[in-house]
């Protein structure tokens, strides 16, 4: 490897080794021989297509090429070629991780392994599980189930263009009782960075009928080792699906005031922990309809954060509170009704601005705007990329909080002040897990305005630093911020980083697989970065 000085503005990738052009050419030629010439892509247009589409600086992460294998055997062969030529590879399932880097690698000049042509689906209807290859998108799986009238539901993220497996491997979120997607994983097939192939859990027994039923097998359970990591390439994964419920009922709740966030959280939290609520409710602010259905110019021509007057106008037009949440209860009629009564009583006690009942039974149409709570894939929320009227996008900032209303309100107050300081429009949600809460901010970008874009990086770094002071780290990060986020997890002089590095060096001594992913760098890069 030769040394290249990265002159990026962000500056945290100061000096990285990059593969020689000759090694890349040779590796790509060998890879093309494995996948076929029509599955190796290295034109300038291809490189652009695999770059980040919601970037701060797309050029920083432009890959050298992409190859698209169709089988685990091909993936193994490609990995061995990468090792032989010492070239970095970056795996994507479908490459649609918008807001987190899209298909682009941390290290520019990497070869992208695009698994989108691996599309096998094996559903076990009786046990409500599916064994998937990474190229299967949410729409593919949804269509597969619907066209066969299989009464199993997905949980889908707000933009469902991407891969079911890829999303679960990045710990993506949905809104149903199966909304914490990484928890649905049960059993994997993984190609290791030396080309070996392993099956986890019960899959380690070749004839096991319970690979997708029991998550652990015997001895250490490895599935989470391959989530948000660069320790292996997942070529198959089992996912649990939700049996279609007898009914779904609930309330769309609006709360009037900014300071209603805390009481709303303190009302939902205990019900979630107790199990009265089993979904992953997401509290969103007043902005969630306007940035999808309108552009900023329809409201104001003033720069800076949207004013209180504009916020009032937006709320009035869409009938929204400062905060809103859609609460849903799923299951048998009698159980749902009992839980709904408890939920309604708790909600009435905090005096919502409005509380609209929701009810669905099999056979009822599902409005696309309600699809998120029913596992129906959607893309329309991504219309927010046009909020500024031209090219846009978003970058996530998503610290892990507790379910304390007081602490969340304080976190909101600090964050909202920063949005105003940096002149950003506030878009955020508070997404419940079973015990924790994720404060998912989607910072909207205006790619046509260089002055605006200059503020984005300092804004995100400020948010990350503020959160860190209070012990809040992010659950997921854009490729530009993986190092910074990993830095926050520094107990005992970065013991976690040292552990990750030791595992990385053992599994991937050549340091070829996704260097820098989640802040985990192989030995060769660590040496270079210190130099």
């Amino acid at each position, binding site marked *: 490897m030769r040394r290249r000085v990265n002159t990026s503005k962000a500056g945290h990738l100061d000096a990285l080794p990059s593969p020689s052009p000759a090694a890349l050419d040779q590796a790509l030629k060998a890879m093309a021989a494995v996948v076929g010439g029509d599955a190796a892509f290295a034109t300038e247009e291809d490189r652009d297509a695999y770059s980040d589409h919601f970037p701060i600086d797309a050029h920083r992460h432009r890959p050298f090429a992409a190859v698209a294998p169709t089988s685990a055997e091909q993936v193994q062969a490609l990995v061995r070629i990468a090792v032989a030529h010492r070239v970095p590879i970056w795996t994507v399932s479908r490459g649609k991780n*918008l807001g987190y880097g*899209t298909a682009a690698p941390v290290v520019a000049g990497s070869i992208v392994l695009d698994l*989108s042509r691996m599309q096998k689906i094996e559903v076990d209807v009786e046990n409500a599980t599916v064994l998937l290859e990474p190229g299967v998108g949410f729409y593919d799986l949804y269509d597969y189930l*619907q066209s066969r009238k299989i009464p199993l539901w997905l949980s889908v993220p707000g933009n469902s263009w991407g891969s079911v497996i890829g999303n679960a491997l990045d710990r993506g979120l949905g809104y149903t009782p199966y909304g914490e997607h990484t928890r649905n994983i049960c059993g994997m097939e993984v190609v290791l960075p030396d080309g070996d192939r392993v099956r986890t859990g019960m899959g380690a027994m070749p004839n096991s009928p319970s690979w997708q039923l029991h998550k652990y097998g015997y001895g250490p359970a490895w599935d989470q080792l391959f989530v948000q990591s660069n320790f292996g390439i997942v070529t198959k994964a089992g996912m649990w699906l939700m049996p279609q419920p007898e009914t779904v009922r609930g309330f769309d709740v609006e709360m009037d005031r900014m300071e209603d966030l805390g009481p709303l959280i303190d009302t939902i939290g205990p019900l979630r922990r107790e199990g009265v609520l089993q979904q992953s409710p997401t509290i969103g602010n007043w902005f969630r309809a306007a940035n999808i259905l309108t552009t900023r110019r329809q409201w104001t021509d003033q720069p800076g954060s949207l004013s209180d007057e504009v916020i009032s106008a937006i709320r009035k037009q869409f009938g929204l509170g400062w905060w809103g949440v859609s609460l849903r209860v799923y299951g048998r009629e009698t159980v749902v009704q009992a839980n709904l009564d408890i939920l309604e009583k708790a909600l009435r006690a905090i005096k919502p601005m409005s509380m609209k009942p929701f009810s669905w039974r099999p056979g009822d149409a599902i409005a696309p705007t309600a699809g998120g709570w029913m596992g129906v894939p959607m*893309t329309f929320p991504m*219309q927010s990329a046009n909020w500024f009227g031209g090219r846009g996008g978003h970058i996530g900032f998503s610290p892990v909080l507790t379910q304390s209303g007081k602490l969340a309100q304080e976190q909101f107050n600090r964050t909202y002040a920063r949005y105003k300081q940096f002149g950003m429009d506030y878009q955020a949600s508070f997404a419940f897990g079973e015990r924790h809460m994720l404060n998912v901010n989607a910072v909207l970008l205006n790619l046509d305005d260089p002055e605006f874009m200059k503020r984005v990086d300092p804004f995100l770094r400020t948010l990350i630093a503020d959160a860190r002071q209070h012990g809040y780290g992010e659950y997921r990060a854009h490729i530009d911020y993986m190092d910074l986020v990993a830095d926050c997890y520094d107990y005992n002089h970065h013991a976690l980083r040292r552990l990750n590095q030791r595992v990385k060096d053992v599994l991937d001594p050549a340091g070829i697989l996704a260097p820098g992913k989640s802040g985990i760098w192989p030995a060769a890069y660590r040496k270079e970065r210190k130099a």
Partner: protein
Amino acid sequence: MRRLLLLALALPVSVAVQAAEPDGQQLFEHKCAMCHGPVGMGTGLLARRMKPEVAPLEKRDDLSAAYVERAARIGILNMPPITRADVSDAQLALIARYLSKGKP
């Protein structure tokens, strides 16, 4: 906006491609309709720039095959480029022919 929402209420999600060799329409439904069907992101954003009734690509009569292919590969405004792994050149040619209704 209201029109968009009403349209949205009536929408079937794309049907799975089951034929061995899908045609242009099937490929469009499988590869494009999630955004360019009735409630997709692409349709919603195009409705800001043209009459909403022609915002779904299948309703257009002014698309040439060459334009469709270029637009898909380089992306337009908020549309990301479509990689050749996702939609091969041969598949894109079939989709473009379908959407252009025969115009080259």
